[in-house]
């Protein structure tokens, strides 16, 4: 649910990074945080365990610039990927405007990708959303690893509907901003269609 404030002339939107445990959701946000100017980003919050696994969420506010006199602010969230944190994942999807699904390219994580994707659909549905109708981008992360599955296989399994997709290596930053830009564009395009 975007928030349009005519008083401060701001558009605020919420983007959620979803995906299985250790797929690189937090690494995406960390890279964005490291590579953006201090004047466009707020503080990054990570609610993580002592072993740096996301416990509740990571949060990064970003200002992307002005559009028709309105400042655009994007709030980026990650969900905890581990299966047993499902209750937390549901909460974070509340009011979402766009979703990035970070898939782990490693062959042995294929099952986890599919399970997480199913879980995303179910949790979105509970909030009244349909994955096919909201701005949605898939990122195939960890493409640099030797055990990465062929791209065609990932596409076939994780992206049967042909959503916008990117190959990435979040640790080096490859594909990270492309993914963010694509989902942000989708959210703004959706805003344009609002009410029609």
């Amino acid at each position, binding site marked *: 649910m975007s*928030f349009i404030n005519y008083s401060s002339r701001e558009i605020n939107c*919420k983007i959620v990074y979803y995906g299985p445990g250790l797929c690189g959701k937090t690494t995406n946000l960390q890279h964005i945080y490291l590579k953006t100017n201090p004047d466009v980003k707020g503080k990054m919050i990570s609610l993580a365990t002592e072993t740096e696994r996301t416990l509740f969420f990571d949060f990064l506010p970003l200002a992307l610039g002005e559009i028709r006199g309105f400042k655009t602010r994007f709030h980026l969230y990650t969900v905890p990927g581990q299966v047993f944190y499902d209750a937390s994942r549901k909460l974070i999807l509340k009011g979402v405007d766009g979703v990035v699904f970070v898939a782990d390219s490693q062959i042995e994580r294929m099952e986890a990708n599919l399970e997480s994707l199913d879980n995303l659909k179910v949790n979105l549905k509970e909030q009244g959303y349909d994955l096919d109708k909201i701005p949605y981008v898939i990122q195939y992360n960890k493409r640099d690893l030797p055990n990465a599955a062929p791209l065609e296989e990932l596409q076939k399994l994780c992206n049967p509907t042909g959503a916008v997709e990117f190959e990435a290596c979040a640790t080096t930053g490859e594909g990270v901003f492309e993914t963010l830009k694509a989902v942000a564009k989708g959210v703004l395009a959706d805003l344009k269609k609002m009410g029609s």
Partner: protein
Amino acid sequence: MMESQLVMQQEDFDRVFEIIQKLVRDANAKGIFVVDKAGQLIAEAGELQGIDSTSLASLTAGCVAATGGLAKIVGEEEFPIHFHQGERDNLHMTLVGDRMILVVVFDERSSLGLVRLRVKKAGNGLAKLFEDIRKKAETEIQTHGSPFAEITDDDIDNLFSD
């Protein structure tokens, strides 16, 4: 249920601000924040302006959402009031209507009793106001379409030009 867009015009914001400014005085509060359940900061008032209110809003929503989850587990619909007591400052959170959270930060100049009393009245006023804002925005969008219908693909692309 999926939530509709929140669109606040200047006059809506002024009315919200008026209520929370009054609440700052009536409750002897250090700061008041209105946050939506998705984590967006809607308005703030008081002497705490300048703190990281974006993070405050996001964490407040997370906290309220987690507590709401706990409520359901024990068979409650919601825990509408949360109170966090600190050494110097305290935090009082109340659900306002079905999508807003009213956060009051106060210290020894006030008391929990006073805050609860004042928040009740202000909360009712805010709930009604946000309901009016929601209805008005819905009518506006149905009648005139998106306020951003004029945005072109080029406008969006320009936002990302390095």
